Every structure is written in structure tokens, then in C-alpha cells.
């Protein structure tokens, strides 16, 4: 573990077990809450968050404070905080690590957010594969309740807030805020667009704030140490705070690292993640989760921050770096991503429901050596269609394909010219079916046991 970078969220990270309440309190835990409830007004907390320029860590990077400002102040009735722990984007596992590292940090952040917007109900939306984490949170919520950090009259004040866990049954689209609200309401989780924002009319038609878990976990630090401290954590001029970077793929030490915002991609991969895995040569990296394009080597010195990356035509996303080596077929990798997107679409709009499977079909043909120039033309024709889909899902799915066609066209052409996969992958016509696929060759992942808190 690197020690030269400030550890805010992972301060209490222990090997193989979550931090206890005592450990969390020993590190200054719940001080922010004690200093806030009954001592600061909700508006002051909101101002802190606005000043700190805390941006959403779930992918879109929308400023959290601005989102909270949308909550109508005159609303009578319940307001909700929904904690989005549905990360299902391939390559992303930061929330799981975070919950497992320091559950009380998360709980304190949620309560602070609730206090700021005047919410009395919280829903911890968690994906099914994190069942252990759901139980952990439920357990730690009980502990927090016993100690007066949660439930009625928090810390003796007249502020009450309670949190319950809502288990999802698993679909990537549930991570979208409006879809998540529908999922909690027992409706089909199709995203909703148009009409009032969720901050005005969300869960059960009440004002609802949906924030990523990591976003909320930053609150205790901001409240305790102030916005200036938080901004100073970042290494880039425009950024603020630290970020959990999930690094996976062909690196020596895959894992989740807390590093400042603004750190370069090269530094993450080659310093913190220990460089490429033995015997592997860097080819490309997907910098922000599956819905961001492949990043060519030339851009490795890009700062990981929302605005600089957007300016470079890349996306910060969830800061989940997936590193590919020279031996990996990017057509195959894109196909794998498209398999994911095609399966996880909610089926609402045409570009997503029909377009992504069409792309998948074309990529299957190209990967299987039956591709033609016309298929590439069709892929190119489809990308702008995907960009105009109902929600951000299909445009996200278009990104890796666009990255492939922009930066790695030579690889695609090689498939077409050689009429087979130049990396030796067999045709994926029956991929995902027991058909005998690639030559048995199992992952030589180096085992950084010390990275894994579970």
C-alpha cells in the first residue's frame, strides 16, 4: 500500500476485516456528526459541500451540492436519501471495498447528507452480489442506532433519520438514479427522463437525493476539515478530494487505491498498481469503467479528473481502470463489453434495445473472421444512433466501440484481412456457451493478498 498519498476514505482500512465503530471513533469518526447536528444549520452543511466542490463519484460527476440545492425547501412530508451501491459497471468494485473497509464512515456520510436536505428516511440500495456487505451495513446500522448515530433523535437532537437496506435483484440499469427509484418502488427500473427531477419528485413522489456511496463517504471529512482541506487533497487545479481508483486487468497489483483526483493515469498504473503484470506490455486502458472509450498510450499522462478528461475526449466515469496488454484482442474485449451492455439494457428505447445487440452481432462476425468492410460501415452508422438513446446507457456502450474504431482500427482491419482473430481467439459464435473456446490458459494474476480487505 502506498503511504505517500493522503488516505481519507481508506484511513481505517484493515486487512481482511471492516473497521469497528471503536476504531472509526478513534480516528475522529462521528466527530463531524457531533459537530453538525444541532450546531450547524442544514444550509451551512450544504454550503460546505458546495464550497468543497464535491462531485458525484458514480460516473457522471454532477456536483453533489448542486443536486441537493434542487430539493424544494417547502416540501411537507418525507424526504429520502438513496445511497447508490449498485456499481455493476465492469471494472468497478470500489464501493464494495469501501463498505468493507469502513462502514461507519459511510453511515456518517449518509446521516450528514440527510441532515443537510432534511431527509428522514434513507434507502441503502445494494446489488445482490454484495449480499455480505448488505448484511454488514445492516449490522453496523444496528450498532450506530444503539449509539444514537442513527434512528430517532440522533445524538439527542430532534433530528431523526433511519436507514434501511434495499436489496436489488441485479441489473446494471438500476444504478441510474431514476431507474433506482423505480426499482425501490417495485416498478420496472426503466429510467425516467423529462418531468421533475428526482430531487423534486423521486421516491414515492417525495424529494429524493440519489448519491453514490463514495460521494457520501467524503462528507465527514469535508465537514470536519473544511472545504479548503478537501480541495487541497486534489492534485489538479479543478478537482477536489481523493478518489477510489479500481485498477484491474493486466497489472502487477490490481486493487482499489485511494489517490488524489488529478493523479495521472501513468502514475496509477505504473506506480501504485505496480506496473504491468510480469511479461505483459501495455496496450491500452479503459480509464473510467465500461462506458468509457479505450485510451491510447499517448494519453497516459492525462490527469484523472472530470474536466481535463472530458476536454481530451475521454471520460472520468467511475475511475475504474482496466488495463489491457498487447496480447489481448481489443475486438474481443469490446465484444465482451457489448455482451454486457446488450444483456443489461432495460429494453426501453430502440437504439439500446436493438442497436447494442446489432453491434454485438457485427463484432461477433468480425471477431470470428467473417467481418467485411460493410460491417465496419454499419458499426460507424450505429454509433450516432446510440448516442441519441433515452438515457446515458447506450451512449456509454458506444464509447468503447468508438474508442476501438478511433484508436485501434488496425486491429479491426487485421481481423477482416486475415479472416480470423490475429490473437488466436476462436470464433465467438457460441461464446458463453459450453463450446470449447480459447485454448485453456488460466489467469496468471499475481496475488496481492494485502490489497484485499475481504
Amino acid at each position: 500500500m502506498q503511504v505517500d498519498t493522503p488516505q481519507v476514505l481508506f484511513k481505517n482500512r484493515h486487512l481482511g476485516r471492516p473497521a469497528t465503530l471503536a476504531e472509526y471513533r478513534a480516528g475522529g469518526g462521528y466527530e463531524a456528526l457531533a459537530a453538525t447536528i444541532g450546531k450547524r444549520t442544514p444550509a451551512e452543511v450544504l454550503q460546505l459541500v458546495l464550497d468543497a466542490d464535491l462531485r458525484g463519484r458514480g460516473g457522471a460527476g454532477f456536483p453533489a451540492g448542486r443536486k441537493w440545492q434542487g430539493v424544494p425547501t417547502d416540501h411537507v412530508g418525507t424526504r429520502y436519501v438513496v445511497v447508490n451501491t449498485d456499481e455493476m459497471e465492469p471494472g468497478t468494485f470500489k464501493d464494495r471495498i469501501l463498505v468493507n473497509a469502513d462502514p461507519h464512515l459511510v453511515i456518517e456520510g449518509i446521516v450528514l447528507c440527510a441532515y443537510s436536505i432534511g431527509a428522514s428516511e434513507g434507502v441503502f440500495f445494494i446489488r445482490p452480489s454484495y449480499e455480505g456487505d448488505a448484511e454488514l451495513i445492516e449490522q453496523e446500522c444496528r450498532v450506530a442506532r444503539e449509539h444514537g448515530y442513527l434512528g430517532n433523535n440522533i445524538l439527542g437532537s430532534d433530528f431523526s433519520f433511519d436507514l434501511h437496506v434495499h436489496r436489488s435483484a441485479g441489473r446494471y440499469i438500476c444504478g441510474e438514479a431514476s431507474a433506482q427509484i423505480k426499482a425501490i418502488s417495485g416498478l420496472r427500473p426503466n429510467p425516467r427522463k423529462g418531468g421533475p427531477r428526482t430531487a423534486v419528485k423521486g421516491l414515492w413522489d417525495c424529494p429524493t437525493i440519489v448519491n453514490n456511496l463514495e460521494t457520501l463517504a467524503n462528507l465527514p471529512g469535508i465537514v470536519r476539515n473544511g472545504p479548503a482541506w478537501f480541495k487541497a487533497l486534489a492534485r489538479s487545479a479543478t478537482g477536489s478530494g481523493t478518489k477510489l481508483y479500481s485498477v484491474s486487468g493486466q497489472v502487477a497489483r490490481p486493487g482499489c487505491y485511494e489517490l488524489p483526483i488529478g493523479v495521472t493515469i501513468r502514475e496509477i498504473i505504473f506506480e501504485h498498481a505496480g506496473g504491468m503484470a510480469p511479461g505483459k506490455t501495455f496496450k491500452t486502458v479503459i480509464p473510467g469503467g465500461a462506458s468509457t472509450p479505450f485510451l491510447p498510450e499517448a494519453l497516459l499522462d492525462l490527469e484523472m479528473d472530470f474536466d481535463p478528461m472530458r476536454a481530451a475526449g475521454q471520460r472520468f466515469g467511475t475511475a475504474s481502470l482496466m488495463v489491457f496488454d498487447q496480447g489481448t484482442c481489443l475486438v474481443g474485449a469490446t465484444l465482451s463489453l457489448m455482451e454486457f451492455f446488450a444483456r443489461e439494457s432495460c429494453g426501453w428505447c430502440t437504439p439500446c434495445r436493438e442497436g447494442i445487440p446489432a453491434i454485438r452481432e457485427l463484432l461477433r462476425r468480425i471477431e470470428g473472421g467473417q467481418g467485411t468492410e460493410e460491417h465496419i460501415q454499419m458499426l460507424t452508422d450505429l454509433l450516432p444512433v446510440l448516442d441519441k438513446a433515452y438515457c446515458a446507457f447506450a451512449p456509454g456502450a458506444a464509447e468503447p466501440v468508438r474508442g476501438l474504431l478511433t484508436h485501434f482500427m488496425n486491429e479491426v482491419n487485421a481481423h477482416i484481412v486475415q479472416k480470423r482473430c490475429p490473437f488466436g481467439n476462436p470464433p465467438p459464435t457460441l461464446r458463453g456457451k459450453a463450446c470449447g473456446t480459447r485454448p485453456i490458459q488460466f489467469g496468471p494474476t499475481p496475488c496481492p493478498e494485502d490489497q484485499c480487505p475481504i
Partner: protein
Amino acid sequence: MSPLPTELETELARLVAAVPRPREAAVDVMYALQRHYGYLCDEAMHCAARVLGMTTLELESLATFYDYLYRRPVGRYVIHVCDSVVCWMFHQDSIFDYLCRTLGVPPGGTSEDGLFTVLPAACIGNCHNAPTMLINGRFYDRLTPERIDAVLAELRAGTEEPVRCK
């Protein structure tokens, strides 16, 4: 339709009472019935509809939408093998193929002894340990054929109490 055990009825009533509106408990109730029946058979769907005051179609809308609610019979252990890009990079397809061949089932099929169902799954959030799989709420990391054999043997021996997906 056989009546549900009293404990289960109590549990369902508790789940429905714990949330602001019964609809919110839809997934939880279906999980509970799935644990009881093994999968969501039509009878389970009718039970859920009765408990939640929703129609079977509304529940079917959800049950078929989601990944971890099974409307077809499954084995005691449902093996979700992650097939997203990082696992793919580490030859997930070979792992999957190996699993299917070892158990003698097609994808989505259940082994003859009724113990295992093999399913491909979207990213399960364990990419740093790729290739990986999830069995009844537990991750199995950095799979190799040997590791798979060991896991299957362990589960077969029943040494591990099943941690059912809730």
C-alpha cells in the same frame, strides 16, 4: 396450493410491514419465496401477489427483469460466473467451459444431482480477483481448473452451510 409454513408467512408479513409501501418489498418477498421454493415457481408468484397486493403480471415484470430471481428451477448452488471484460481477459470463457464440462450442463443448466446451476453473470464487482465467480453470496477468486474442482468438491461434501442469496 399448499399453505406456506407459519414462519415464512410471518417473515413475509414482516418484510411487507418494514417498508413504507408493500410494493417496495416486492423483491425481498420474492427472494424469501425463492429461498423457500428453491426458485420462483408459479405458486410462489401467486403467493407473492397475495402478500403484496400486486398482480402476478406485475411481479413477473420484475422477476423476469432481474438477474437473481429465478423463474426456472435451479440447483442448490447457483454459480454466477462473471463474464465481463476483465474476467474475459483472464480467460473466463475457458473457466466457464470447464465448469460446464465438469458438471455436464449447458449454460443455465442444472447438474443431474440438482446441486449446481451454471450461469454467466454480469460483472460481480470482483475484478481485481479475476476470473471470479459467485456462489450463493460468496466470491471465489482467481479461478483455475484446480480451484474449481476444489470448490465443487467442497460444496458437494456439504461442508459449507449454504449462504443463500437473499
